[in-house]
């Protein structure tokens, strides 16, 4: 007969209540692990969806995810020409925050070459961008409907398609537009600014007395074109041909002096190490604190439930129960409580994890590790009760 189970059955309400409480606590511990994994997945989402072997970024920078990286768009032709490179495609990234329905609305705008790669990984509704202008594919997290319009920069953009869970490294949902649209949104000046720029160029040129009117006109056009050019991107990504040597290609791009080629691995290290290391430590610390709290709570519950059972334990000893019966009762109760609380926490998290504002990723390894830790905690916690129980004298069953 299992005494632990009988005792639980008799005090079912109390047991359920404590298990649910403990379950909530363990659910929070689990969710913190999930949040950390989610940070990781978010940080790498764009990187993984792009599936590029090399990220070419501005010299001396860590690339567009870490800082400002600007390179000319036409460098893509030179990169395509490097032996071993199969495809090269320019990308632009920008985090935008607008007002929508009276609330701040943040998202990550990705501009991609419609003939290149780096666009939406899947289309779950609607279609991909077909026209060069004013079409937008929104990630699920944008909560936008097909056909809805969004005013960005100087124009309205129509949602033509919905893609999956693509987010920026800070967890903002992504939206895709064509590269030229993205460049307009990011770099194009409004008409007032253009007018005043042109006036300034005119004023500057008119001070140069030696220029002929033809020369002035020519210069004016060229300077204005450069000032108004939007042909800048944040990175050019490249895929290698099968069998190509990564380090040779990098070496080659490095020699041009103005760009830094990052391998996918380096890019992923920049995204994880630098950007989420602190969050990881923070979450880790919280998890440890919560686990210690759980351990203290389980110990206290087991200890008080042992105190409640002193007379039962004394009676069991009196009728000659071996110690293993008593130790087993306390240990099993502790383990049952821990395992059931774990299950409750897990179920709660399963029911709620997609409602969290940030992505939660439950890794089987993390879950198993936590279960093992909970079991160890339960075993250690039951020691305080077992120590007390072993000291109980059978004579204590006689009083009263």
């Amino acid at each position, binding site marked *: *007969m299992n*005494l632990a189970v*009988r*005792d639980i*059955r*008799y*005090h079912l309400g109390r047991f359920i209540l404590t298990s649910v409480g403990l379950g909530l606590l363990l659910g929070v511990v689990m969710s913190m692990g999930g949040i950390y994994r989610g940070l990781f997945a978010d940080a790498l989402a764009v990187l993984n969806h792009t599936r590029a072997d090399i990220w070419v970024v501005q010299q001396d920078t860590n690339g567009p995810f870490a800082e400002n990286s600007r390179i000319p768009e036409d460098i893509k032709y030179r990169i395509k020409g490097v032996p071993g490179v199969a495809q090269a495609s320019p990308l632009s990234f920008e985090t935008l925050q607008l007002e929508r329905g009276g609330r701040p609305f943040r998202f990550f705008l990705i501009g991609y070459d419609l003939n290149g790669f780096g666009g939406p990984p899947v289309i779950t509704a609607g279609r991909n961008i077909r026209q060069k202008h004013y079409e937008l594919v929104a990630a699920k997290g944008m909560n936008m409907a097909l056909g809805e319009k969004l005013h960005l920069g100087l124009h309205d953009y129509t949602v033509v398609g919905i893609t999956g869970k693509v987010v920026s490294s800070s967890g903002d949902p992504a939206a895709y537009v064509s590269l030229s649209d993205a460049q307009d949104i990011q770099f194009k000046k409004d008409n007032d600014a253009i007018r005043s720029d042109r006036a300034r160029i005119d004023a500057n040129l008119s001070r140069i007395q030696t220029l002929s009117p033809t020369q002035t006109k020519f210069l004016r056009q060229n300077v204005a074109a450069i000032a108004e050019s939007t042909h800048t991107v944040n990175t050019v990504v490249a895929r290698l041909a099968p069998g190509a040597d990564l380090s040779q290609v990098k070496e080659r791009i490095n020699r041009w002096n103005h760009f830094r080629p990052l391998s996918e691995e380096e890019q992923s290290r920049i995204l994880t190490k630098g950007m989420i290391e602190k969050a990881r430590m923070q979450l880790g610390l919280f998890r440890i604190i919560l686990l210690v709290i759980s351990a203290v709570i389980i110990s206290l519950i087991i200890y008080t439930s042992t105190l409640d059972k002193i*007379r*039962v334990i004394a*009676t*069991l*000893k*009196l*009728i*000659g*129960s*071996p*110690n293993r*019966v008593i130790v087993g009762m306390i240990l099993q109760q502790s383990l049952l409580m821990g395992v059931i609380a774990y299950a409750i926490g897990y179920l709660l998290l399963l029911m709620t994890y997609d409602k969290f504002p940030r992505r939660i990723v439950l890794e089987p390894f993390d879950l198993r590790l936590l279960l093992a830790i909970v079991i160890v905690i339960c075993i250690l916690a039951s020691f305080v009760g077992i120590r007390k129980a072993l000291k109980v*004298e*059978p*004579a204590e*069953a*006689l009083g*009263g």
Partner: protein
Amino acid sequence: MDRMSYAIEVEKLTKIYGRGETAVTALLDATFQVKPGELVAILGPSGSGKSTLLTAIGLINEPTRGRVVLDGALVADGGWVAGIDLKRLRREKLGFIFQAHNLIPFLTAQENVMVALEINRVSRHDAKIRAAELLGSLNLGRRLNNYPSALSGGEAQRVAIARALANVPKVILADEPTAALDTENGKNVMALLKKLAVENSSAILVVTHDHRMVEGFDRIFEVHDGRISCPPLAEGER
């Protein structure tokens, strides 16, 4: 009858609680023998040492001096015999019944009896059947699945008796088993014990301070201030 066949044999059994100035001699030089199947009452005022005697024989309370032999096994000789397994002897040779029934509150009547059987390596299946039979024979057949809190005092005490009897022990020790019961129920419990002594040929020691309860007992020991006076076994029975 040779000494091997006594159920209980006690010689100069002494228990002193504490040391020095605060020492209390609760039991002094008790010497007696009880045969299997004998029903013995121990009478005496409160504080006279009755419980001390019972717990010393019951392997709960270590004697200060003297010898105790249970069912032929020497268990105490100036303290417990070295290396003795008290729990095992308790579960195999002894049955306890107390004033407060001491049932385990979270087990049903049947399960309370099953515990005693299962710790003696009776399979769960057999334990279940034997517990039900035993409780049935004590008129508790309809109470098998009740928790102790739902039983009357008399019923609870009968469950406790069933638990004490479950392993058919050679020695049953009962400390004021009727104290919490009314006269009617008390007499029923005593009659039950008497019947069991005969049927199981167990030696039963019953502590009580109620003279009305002891009719029909084989012998009556009286305890005063830790000294026990007991009628000897009849000549022919030695």
